[in-house]
């Protein structure tokens, strides 16, 4: 029984150098070929959901924002939505808004997404005749888009076309010893082949800044890491409470993690030994330079992986101590654990079990299994959470009040 969840699938074959994806006009490659139905504002959410329910192979992204936000906050929502539309896993996009949201209209979002060369249409519920007529129009357009999308074929591409997302969650003391180390091994293999990986979770760099700064290719990048962690800590201090309880969380502490420093030093094992080539704000698109990219995100798993998806990742390794259901609706999310108890309790959503590390298996043996899973999932194999529609982790980070 202990050998389920993909264990025992190891092989002595050479490391795979390619995967099968959907090449896009702008040079990106999708691991999925979804029609994305993207909501511009909360009042368009039900219309998006109706359209996506009707159309097979479509995904709706809905959220409570896009309205009555100010300045940098509405800009953040806008960039997140644009980033998801531009993500290569979306083959075509329909953006739906309600009436007019200044700075975040469906037309403006669609305009930015169109720069990738993919087909995108904007629907406005008011102008298109109300909820029912707008649903009908979007459904009809979406059906034609899907006829085209489903006629496209995957092509063999290099690992260099991968932007691998890295995130951990419900961490415990096994995280820094097992699954995060296996993830770090995968990061190194992807980067060695000219690919990219994207590390996030600024709160979980607190106490490990120096380790990350030493990996930076330029001292200025290291300074940016120190600065972004400092800004996060300043926001925490301004709350006037002990961070402990929020970070590490209750389940982190139950899992034996005593302080944020301990959690961080385990979390940054996901970085492996790859050089850090860029440090970017929340939801910004990662540049094309091979190496490890670092994004400034909170430790909140849903917000963090939403930032990573907006940054362009097609596939993400979510490495977890407690086991997890987390799944981004657009970016394939592979959950792995090295905690033997969690592998059993959360087997329903654990894609790769690396508990053999605690039985003495070398990190590269477990890492190899995760690497193979990454390329298989990138090539179309569904994760357990994709099969279960466990679409719980699209969460836009905020930096301002509702007004």
């Amino acid at each position: 029984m202990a050998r389920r969840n993909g264990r025992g699938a190891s092989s002595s074959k050479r490391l795979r150098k390619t995967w099968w994806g959907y090449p896009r006009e702008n040079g990106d490659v999708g691991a999925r070929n979804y029609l994305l139905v993207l909501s511009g504002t909360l009042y368009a959410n039900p219309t998006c959901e109706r359209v996506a329910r009707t159309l097979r192979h479509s995904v709706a992204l809905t959220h409570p924002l896009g309205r009555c936000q100010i300045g940098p906050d509405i800009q953040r929502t806008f960039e997140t939505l644009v980033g998801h539309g531009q993500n290569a896993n979306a083959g075509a996009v329909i953006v739906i808004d309600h009436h007019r949201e200044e700075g975040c209209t469906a037309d403006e979002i669609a305009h930015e997404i169109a720069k990738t060369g993919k087909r995108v249409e904007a629907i406005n519920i008011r102008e298109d005749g109300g909820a029912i007529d707008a649903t009908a129009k979007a459904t009809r357009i979406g059906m034609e888009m899907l006829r085209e999308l489903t006629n496209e074929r995957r092509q063999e591409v290099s690992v260099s076309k991968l932007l691998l997302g890295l995130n951990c969650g419900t961490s415990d003391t096994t995280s820094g010893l097992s699954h995060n180390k296996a993830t770090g091994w995968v990061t190194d293999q992807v980067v060695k082949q000219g690919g990219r990986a994207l590390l996030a979770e600024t709160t979980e760099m607190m106490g490990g800044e120096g380790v990350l700064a030493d990996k930076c290719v330029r001292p200025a990048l290291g300074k940016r890491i120190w600065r972004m962690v400092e800004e996060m800590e300043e926001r925490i201090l301004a709350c006037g409470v002990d961070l402990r309880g929020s970070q590490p969380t209750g389940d982190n502490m139950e899992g034996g993690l005593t302080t944020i420093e301990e959690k961080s030093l385990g979390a940054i094992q996901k970085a492996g030994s790859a050089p850090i080539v860029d440090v970017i704000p929340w939801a910004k698109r990662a540049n094309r330079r091979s190496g490890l990219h670092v994004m400034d995100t909170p430790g909140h798993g849903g917000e963090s992986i939403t930032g990573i998806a907006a940054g362009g990742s097609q596939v993400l390794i979510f490495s977890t101590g407690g086991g997890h259901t987390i799944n981004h609706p657009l970016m394939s999310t592979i959950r792995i654990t090295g905690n033997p108890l969690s592998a059993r309790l959360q087997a329903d959503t654990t894609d790769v079990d690396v508990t053999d590390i605690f039985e003495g298996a070398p990190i590269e043996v477990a890492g190899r299994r995760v690497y193979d899973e990454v390329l298989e999932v990138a090539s179309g194999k569904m994760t357990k959470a994709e099969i279960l529609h466990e679409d719980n982790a699209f969460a836009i980070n905020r930096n301002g009040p509702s007004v």
Partner: protein
Amino acid sequence: MPVTAMIIEEGDNVATCLEKVAKGGSVRLMLNGKMGKTLKANQAIPYIHKICIKPLKKGEHCMKYGLSIGVASKDIKVGDYIHVHNIESARGRGDLE
């Protein structure tokens, strides 16, 4: 049968117990896959929690991964259970401002 406890870096103050340990139970230390000496747990230690392997005076930094994971809030002896009751974080302490 002693419970295995993993040390990450030589010089660390703590090791992670891979099974729960009863009070007085024995714990065998492991570093880089090699088994080392055996300790007695002074208190019960829950599943995957930490045991002290190098004593700490109040105010000293507790080392894991070769780096500080916080500060001892009281003196800690070898074999003691280490967690939130005797280690404080040095970061994000808005309560101390």
